[in-house]
């Protein structure tokens, strides 16, 4: 009995507290920068697509909602020919972002993705690729990779010796 009265009293007190709910959508939710919402594909500092089509996000995804196909340009730079996320399956766990070795795929603070038709929740690369580096500015995967994919010549990357002269036997 006493506990019932105590509970009702506490509820009553809440009437005078500051409201936690907001008048969404008139009023927008403040999200933290690391909030894991809408997924985007970002670009590197030179404006190139960051995604190298490595399939790691796809394999990390617990609900298997990422599908892509890698392809290459003439210089040997890999990029996704198509990149599809089925948001009607995504659970916004952020594993894809964690798996991504190039910072290409990022979850950003935005959850306004509701659709009336489920089919409209299937996003293609055009819907995902943004013109920004997102949360991780400055990183360009091909500058630190060993490959020459048109971004840097062999041996000119960070911490790389110039290519070996294979005709020399000198130490």
């Amino acid at each position: 009995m006493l506990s019932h009265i105590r509970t009702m009293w506490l509820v009553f007190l809440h009437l005078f507290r500051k409201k936690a709910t907001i008048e969404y959508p008139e009023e927008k939710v403040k999200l933290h920068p690391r909030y894991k919402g809408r997924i985007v594909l970002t670009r590197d500092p030179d404006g190139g697509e960051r995604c190298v089509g490595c399939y790691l996000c796809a394999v990390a995804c617990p609900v298997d909602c990422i599908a892509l196909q890698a392809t290459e340009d003439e210089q040997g730079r890999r990029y996704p020919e198509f990149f599809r996320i089925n948001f009607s399956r995504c659970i916004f766990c952020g594993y894809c972002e964690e798996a991504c070795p190039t910072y290409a795929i990022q979850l950003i603070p935005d959850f306004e993705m509701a659709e009336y038709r489920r089919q409209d929740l299937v996003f293609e690369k055009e819907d995902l690729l943004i013109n920004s580096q997102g949360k991780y500015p400055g990183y360009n995967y091909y500058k630190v990779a060993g490959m020459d994919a048109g971004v840097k010549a062999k041996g000119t990357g960070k911490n790389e010796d110039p290519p070996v002269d294979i005709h020399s036997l000198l130490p």
Partner: protein
Amino acid sequence: MPTIRIDDKDYEVRDGKNLLESCLALGFDLPYFCWHPAMGSVGACRQCAVKVFKDEQDTRGRLVMSCMEPVKEGLRLSIVDPAAKAFREQVIEWLMTNHPHDCPVCDEGGSCHLQDMTVMTGHDYRRYQYRKRTYQNQYLGPFIHHEMNRCIQCYRCVRFYRDIAGGEDLNVYAAHDHIYFGREKEGVLQSPFSGNLAEICPTGVFTDKTLKAHYTRKWDLTNAGSVCPHCSLGCNIFAGERYGEIRCITNRFNSEVNGYFLCDKGRFGYEFVNSENRIRQPLIRGRLVDAVSEDQLLEYLRHLTGNGNIIGIGSPRASVETNFSLMQLVGIDNFYQGVNEDTAFLQKRVTDILESGTLRSNSLRDIESSDAILVLGEDIWNTAPIMALTVRQSVMKTAFSQTVQQISLPSWNDIAVRELTQEARGYLANAGTSGSPLDKLATHHVQAAPDDIARMGYAIAAHLDPSLPPLSKQENELTARTGEIALALSLARKPAIISGISACNEAILKAAYNIAWALKRMGKEVGISYVLPECNSMGLALTKAPSFEKALGRLERNTGTTVIVAEQDIYRCLPEEQAEMFFSKCGKIVVLDVLHNRTTERAHVLIPSASFAEGDGSFVNNEGRIQRFYKVYAPENNNVIEGWKWLERIGGGNERIDQLHTMIEKGLSQFAGISTEAPAAGFRIHGEAVPREPHRYSGRTAMWAHLQVSEPKPHQDNNAPLSFTMEGYKGIPPAAIIPFYWAPGWNSVQALNKYQEIPGGKLTGGNPGVRVLNESAEPRGDFFTDMPEAFSARRGRWLLLPAYHLLGSGEMSMESRGIAELSPEPYLALSMQDAVAMNATTGSTMVVQIMGKAYSLPLKIAETLTDGLAVVPAGLPAMPVLPFGSWVEIVKK
């Protein structure tokens, strides 16, 4: 069996092995790089360290490379010893100091032995903050991509390429930590076995360039065990699919067939499956709308086939099932082989010999373990590439076993054995019409006209068996060597004789038989192999159906006959005029095939059939081994189904392969055993089917979401105990249905170790395939005595012979861009003397006249060709079918 003590537990291991293979055979995870079951140990990578103790009292022990240490009774070792573990981890860490940050863009990733070993040793964080060594890459041709930064200097590539495949254009350059694995200059790798580099190299230095063009990770492929459709050896392969396309072919181990390696035609010849040129829609031509639905098609065909005036043409590249279903539909007397009379005749000779049970039909493993080999009149380098590779291994191994007998040296100690063996080789005699890369290894090699090769064979047999008439004294110089060859064969314990039908000469087949039978009568463990042209040539020949020309005669007698052609291009087996004549005599023509070709153009009714990748079926290889291949994926287009299913649908039969097999066994006793070649469709392990997809197959809920957001129901398979999903039994299934190799911690192809009884040995539970041609317990035989006349050149006429090209002669494989790029242009080869006599030089246009038709070809001078022979490439798309084995006129234009 010695007992060794590993981490204080006793294990029985096989004698004569090294510690590494013994540990792996016991199921221990021990990292390694440079050792390979087919190549032995060199101790180059220092990755396989374990601690070995002197005796029970020894507590300090010493680090040794397990791949270089033989098994000894009572030996005590530790894998988990902290010093050994730390050593292995440090080795990886050193290797990694130079390894590029490439995994995301490296095609090896996800099936990389280096990744696996790095994880296995526990190295996970780069401490070395200094610079990495870099290299320039080389262009190595259309098959292999080179990314040299990733090298860990294990030497496997050059050891495979030079020691195993006999290639000369890949080598190691520079010195110390600058060593470089590549060619002297950029350029196409010359060995037709170069594709194996992609599997041999434990890193991403050498990768499959055709896979790169539509790259998919190993974990994303839907796979099934299959059989290579490009030659008669029937190498076992895995085919992997993604998004409705075959993406790559990898080796499926079978210790009795292909072992660890494939040829480039087999590995890269898959692109026809994805070709634009595929037939995808059933057509009834001459209607307002050609394209018809399945119901319309079946109704039309049932009507057409109802009247009884019908024949069926089987095919050497169609499965046993398709040929049988056709035979059933048209009636056994109305079924013909889709090969010309000459081929059918030669193949009949082969099946007669092998079915008599007089001789053992050799498997490739038998050839590998032989100690003397005679190749009589077959260019196996081009017509049976993996057999040529096997012959090479056999010749080397014979020499090695002689070496290790002299001093006690374990046979796996590769460098030491090779050093000691030097240039010594086991015995190989190679007789052919044109030279072969095998000649380099051969003790005797002979180039002669087919009849002379046959005479030589008869003479060898006569040397071996005194009951045979010897050659007359005044024979040409060729037969001088027969005595030596006969002697070498008679000294062997297990000689192997290889021949085939590509020289278009029956006497050669008989001569090969005579030699083998003579050896058998001497008590030798002899075996014989006949190479045939196509993947199911043996399966078709075993039906004993009459040849194509017989069908032609039949059509002349009965007009308006409906002809059903199952997966054969008539224009590839008959000269143009005869093919035209054939079609002009047919009533309605029904063609089932995979790709559009000239025959499909003539079809009134055209039916798409599944390739090896979309269909279930079996091929019989040249040895007489029935091997099952499985549907890799279910194509979206349900018109693309197996030939046999279409034929069963027309005939109202059933579409279960297991029931069909029972019927085949009832109808054709020569295929007895086909129902046991693989587990039945209802086979389950703990109630589960075996998944075609790895357990980390990705994108399941997105890959088709653009079409329909709800995932499609997985396709059901009624014909195999395999599922088209990632769910199912995760352990090791029976060998015949293994869809890919994977074991915990082993993502690369090296997971194969876990599927074998011992590394390099049989697959657990036995290799797949059922042999239908077996040696009888009490063989009885006779010699052939009809030796042909010696060859003599004729004035103004030449004996026309085919030259098969590994890359180029295959009908299907030429759809692959890389293979087409490397295939030769048409040519006509003559001997130097003949060319000079006609005042012609290399490149001169020569005109070959055949039955009133003239074919112009550029001249190539073949130094070693016998005068009076003319050789042209066979099977090139640009080449007409010529009457090989007949005499033609040639003039210079």
